[in-house]
């Protein structure tokens, strides 16, 4: 990797041609029930999503096995989707249920049906190149707030990104960028990687001297499992509107992260849940999605609660936009050069690799428990003392004191 002058090259590698095994969220379930059918481009192909007569959602390959017609441009008839080309009817299990102009349906008339799951008001499909059913312990956990009147409704946003989806997963171990993109001090950062779950425990504090610049986002980076919206909302220079944030996040499988957040909203503690999820379109393109619910503050109407959630989601989105700017201009790198204060990137990629191997080929160490922790609180205290001194000097001195801290 290094040449004879000690210069290290980037090993660009190549994205896998197969797609990750696991549950993938296609979006909120309710919109898929509206009229329909609906098209989703994912997993290197096109899918058709439709609701049957009882309202249950089904997902099939979109291209009809008869003559290749696009079922997403067809019509739901009863509990089947009818192809616009020759009106072949396909049921939710993939079997052809009717060919109106034929006496009988050929016995091999069966297309691919994708296993679905509805959880947390969202629709999931199971992707597995080996075609196996999901193991019992590999599922999407229930988020109680998604079913509770004490919480707002989901916001939901999507963004198509021209990069390999590993870029977003790398963020679960990325502690350092909090300093550089979101003007926040991570005071505590921990990862636990085990089995199909990758968890991140995070605490941050805002910078006391940071004034939000509308041209630069202080918003969330939920790709890393934390939103900084609390920090940017503070921003009163010098005043102690220190906004603390506690985040507990985990990927359940390769693509769906649930992030439980507690943060300070203008002096009031707020509870929120942020979903950060994605599905692959091709090996070089994925759709990133994020959704937010917030627990209603006492006295807030449902509409007001939804507004709070929308505001939070907007800050999260600003953070993701910054991430996308990085991802779409960076090189893929399979041999990152790390320092002692970086997170466990190689261990995270080893954990992520399990979803691209046949189940029988997963080595034990790939799914063994790995813990990584950095307690940065002492470094942050020292930095804040320096910033406080800078602020005092600015206010007291007739000449501005140059700051080396790169404020703003």
């Amino acid at each position, binding site marked *: 990797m290094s040449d004879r002058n000690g210069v290290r090259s980037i090993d660009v590698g190549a994205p896998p041609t197969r797609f990750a095994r696991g549950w993938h969220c296609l979006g909120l379930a309710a919109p898929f029930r509206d009229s329909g059918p609906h098209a989703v481009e994912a997993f290197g192909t096109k899918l058709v999503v439709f609701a049957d007569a009882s309202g249950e959602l089904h997902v099939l390959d979109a291209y009809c096995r008869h003559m290749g017609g696009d079922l997403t441009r067809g019509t739901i008839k009863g509990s089947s989707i009818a192809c616009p080309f020759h009106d072949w009817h396909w049921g939710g299990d993939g079997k052809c249920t009717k060919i109106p102009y034929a006496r009988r349906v050929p016995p091999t008339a069966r297309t691919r049906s994708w296993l679905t799951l509805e959880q947390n008001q969202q629709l999931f499909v199971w992707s597995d190149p080996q075609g196996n059913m999901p193991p019992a312990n590999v599922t999407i956990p229930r988020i109680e707030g998604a079913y509770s009147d004490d919480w707002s409704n989901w916001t939901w946003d999507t963004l198509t990104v021209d990069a390999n989806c590993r870029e977003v997963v790398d963020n679960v171990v990325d502690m350092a960028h909090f300093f550089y993109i979101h003007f926040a001090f991570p005071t505590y950062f921990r990862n636990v990687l085990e089995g199909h*779950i990758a*968890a991140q425990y995070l605490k941050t504090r805002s910078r006391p001297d940071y004034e939000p610049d509308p041209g630069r986002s202080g918003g969330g980076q939920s790709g890393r499992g934390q939103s900084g919206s609390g920090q940017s909302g503070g921003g009163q220079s010098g005043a102690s509107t220190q906004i603390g944030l506690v985040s507990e996040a985990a990927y359940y499988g390769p693509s769906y992260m649930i992030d439980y957040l507690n943060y300070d909203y203008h002096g009031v503690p707020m509870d929120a849940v942020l979903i950060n999820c994605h599905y692959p379109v091709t090996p070089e393109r994925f759709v990133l999605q994020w959704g937010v619910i917030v627990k209603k503050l006492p006295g807030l109407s449902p509409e007001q609660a939804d507004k709070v959630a929308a505001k939070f989601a907007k800050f999260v989105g600003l953070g993701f936009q910054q991430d996308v700017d990085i991802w779409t201009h960076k090189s893929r790198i399979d041999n990152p050069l790390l320092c002692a204060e970086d997170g466990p990137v190689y261990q995270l990629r080893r954990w992520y690799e399990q979803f691209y191997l046949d189940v029988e080929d997963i080595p034990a160490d790939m799914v*063994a428990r790995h813990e*990584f922790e950095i307690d940065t609180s002492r470094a942050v205290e020292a930095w804040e003392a320096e910033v406080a001194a800078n602020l005092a000097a600015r206010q007291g001195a007739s000449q501005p004191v140059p700051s080396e801290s790169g404020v703003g």
Partner: protein
Amino acid sequence: MVLAAKFSVQHTSVQWDATAVRQCAEFARRTAVGEQTPLIERCGAMRASIDAAALDGRLPVAPPWLG
């Protein structure tokens, strides 16, 4: 078996194998009431023993490239 490393006072990383996870009493107590080990933030006893080993010098506190 558990492998532990501390690159600095602030840093700790721990690699468990499946046997160690099974043998941990705290994990056993918590999984018996329905928790899953990936979502258990830490084992208190393991953390205490790592901290003790770092304090009395049995566990070196240094980044790996400094040996």
